[in-house]
């Protein structure tokens, strides 16, 4: 046999054989690739189908849709008690906010949404101004709208805030404060100055080493004892500060992971060009580090959003807290009332967290397409 070979005609380019590509191919490869996998697929499909059917049956088919009190829901074989939700829903959103003033949280929410949506859309320009408005101007407007006191708006004590309004106020301020603070702490932890480094490490480890419930109790019960007489901090404010500091410690660790993942050559290239250390950090290292940390940062945002439910322990009635409180109402005492309330709570928390998660995924993909190596 000869060792020499010369190709004289190119082998033809052909489409893949039938059944290995397209929908059928996908099914075969992913769901029915072997006997065991096929059995597993069928079994799981049955379980999912059963669970889905149960929820549908309970929430929709057996659900009670109209009524004015417990009588409608306290019937045999009743499912979800929706009239309870219709009646309580405004309170779940606004808490004990005066009914005549409820347009104020609504306005604050609408302004926020109007500013946030273009901020989240990559194609829309003027991000700098948008961010400036959201982070500096908007908080002032929102606080003024909610708390009142100026421009003829009547004052509304934070003790009468509640429901989803409080959940969003706590979560958003927590997110807005914990991210920059976390970034500073992460940079501090990497500082070459021993004092800054030790202080950052001490701060981070202290907050990470304490359960959030403890932090909230400390903020609401212990903190006033340390303050001089006559000085009192708003309870809601204290809870927000506690939650923000708590989240910022975790944020710092997420960002630190990103900082460490940026190659050392990046810093060297920046310095070699004559950029100062701070410019190198701000223009080169930090943008890359934050991109790497997006999944973890959003994870912390989601955690923080759910952790807002813990403000209940210092008697602030957030969304879950106020649903819980409403269940005591004897007017609606029926077997499925509590389940319905918690079902709605779960649904609302899920929608917010899922939205954050999907947006993070979208951002990650977009940044990857920008040709990150």
């Amino acid at each position: 046999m000869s060792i020499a070979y010369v190709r004289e005609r190119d082998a033809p380019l052909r489409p893949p054989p039938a059944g290995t590509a397209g929908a059928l191919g996908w099914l075969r490869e992913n769901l029915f690739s072997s006997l065991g996998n096929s059995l597993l697929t069928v079994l799981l499909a049955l379980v999912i189908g059963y669970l889905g059917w149960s929820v549908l049956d309970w929430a929709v088919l057996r659900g009670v849709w109209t009524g004015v009190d417990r009588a409608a829901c306290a019937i045999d074989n009743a499912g979800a008690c929706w009239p309870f939700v219709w009646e309580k829903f405004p309170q779940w959103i606004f808490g004990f906010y005066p009914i005549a003033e409820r347009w104020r949280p609504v306005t604050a929410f609408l302004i926020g949404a109007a500013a946030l949506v273009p901020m989240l859309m990559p194609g829309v320009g003027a991000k700098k101004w948008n961010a400036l408005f959201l982070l500096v101007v908007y908080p002032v407007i929102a606080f003024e709208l909610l708390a009142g006191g100026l421009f003829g708006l009547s004052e509304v004590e934070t003790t009468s805030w509640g429901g989803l309004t409080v959940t969003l106020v706590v979560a958003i301020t927590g997110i807005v404060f914990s991210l920059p603070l976390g970034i500073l702490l992460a940079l501090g932890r990497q500082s070459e100055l021993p004092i800054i480094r030790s202080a950052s490490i001490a701060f981070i480890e202290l907050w990470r080493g304490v359960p959030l419930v403890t932090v909230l109790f400390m903020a609401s019960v212990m903190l006033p004892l340390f303050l001089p007489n006559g000085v009192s901090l708003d309870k809601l404010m204290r809870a927000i500060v506690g939650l923000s500091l708590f989240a910022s410690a975790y944020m710092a660790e997420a960002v630190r992971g990103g900082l460490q993942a940026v190659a050392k050559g990046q810093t060297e290239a920046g310095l070699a060009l004559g950029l100062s250390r701070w410019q190198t950090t701000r223009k080169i290292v930090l943008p890359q580090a934050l991109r790497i940390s997006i999944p973890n940062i959003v994870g912390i945002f989601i955690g923080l959003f759910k952790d807002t439910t813990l403000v209940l322990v210092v008697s602030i009635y957030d969304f879950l807290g106020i649903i819980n409180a409403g269940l005591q109402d004897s007017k609606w005492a029926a077997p499925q009332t509590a389940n319905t309330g918690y079902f709605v709570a779960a649904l609302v928390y899920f929608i917010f967290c899922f939205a954050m998660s999907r947006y993070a995924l979208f951002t990650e993909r977009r940044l990857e397409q920008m040709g990150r190596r």
Partner: protein
Amino acid sequence: MPQTAVQFIGVNKWFGSFHVLRDINLDVAQGERIVICGPSGSGKSTLIRCINRLEQHQEGRIIVDGIEINDDVKAIEEVRRDVGMVFQHFNLFPHLTVLENCTLAPIWVRKMPKREADALAMKFLERVRIPEQAHKYPGQLSGGQQQRVAIARALCMTPKIMLFDEPTSALDPEMVKEVLDTMVTLASEGMTMLVVTHEMGFARQVADRVIFMDQGQIVEMNAPEAFFGNPRNERTRLFLSQILR
């Protein structure tokens, strides 16, 4: 007599207890092209990284363009503005476009208006013959193109001295030439260059002097014809016999 661009006087450096640079004495004249070679770990990269203080020396003096390198941060930043560096692994900024990579330092260090910086960057991207890639991200370019962008990025600061740290070692063989060609052009324009490389063809063609380093010392230093034609130190001869096959 041309002015001195870089001067090493009795420089010593240690990594921990490892003596990485031993008694380095070297004068580089302005416009001079120097190629540094030697086995890995011989201190070649460390030597040129001391010039812009990416590494600190512990003993001796280094004077770059009349400025002594010491703990003075301002002096170091001044030197870095005028000394360009090209790295083995390019170290382009992956989150910025090619153009932004080039304009970052002119805008933030030289305080140049953006429009002017863009024009300057395009001029140098044309010089390295990739103006059409200006709006791509580094990750979308081949290794050779990335290294040429890295050269353009350094040139945008209009440096007086260029340092090259094994600029072709991380490249696929077919891309080495395009980078070397760019460097040859640069040399022909009178740039002061210190190049760490194993490309002996480049050394013959471009270098005024070739330096051989081993175990942290300058072992031999000569004009290329003499260096390659008649190496005098035994270690130089051994090294050359290993890389010139």
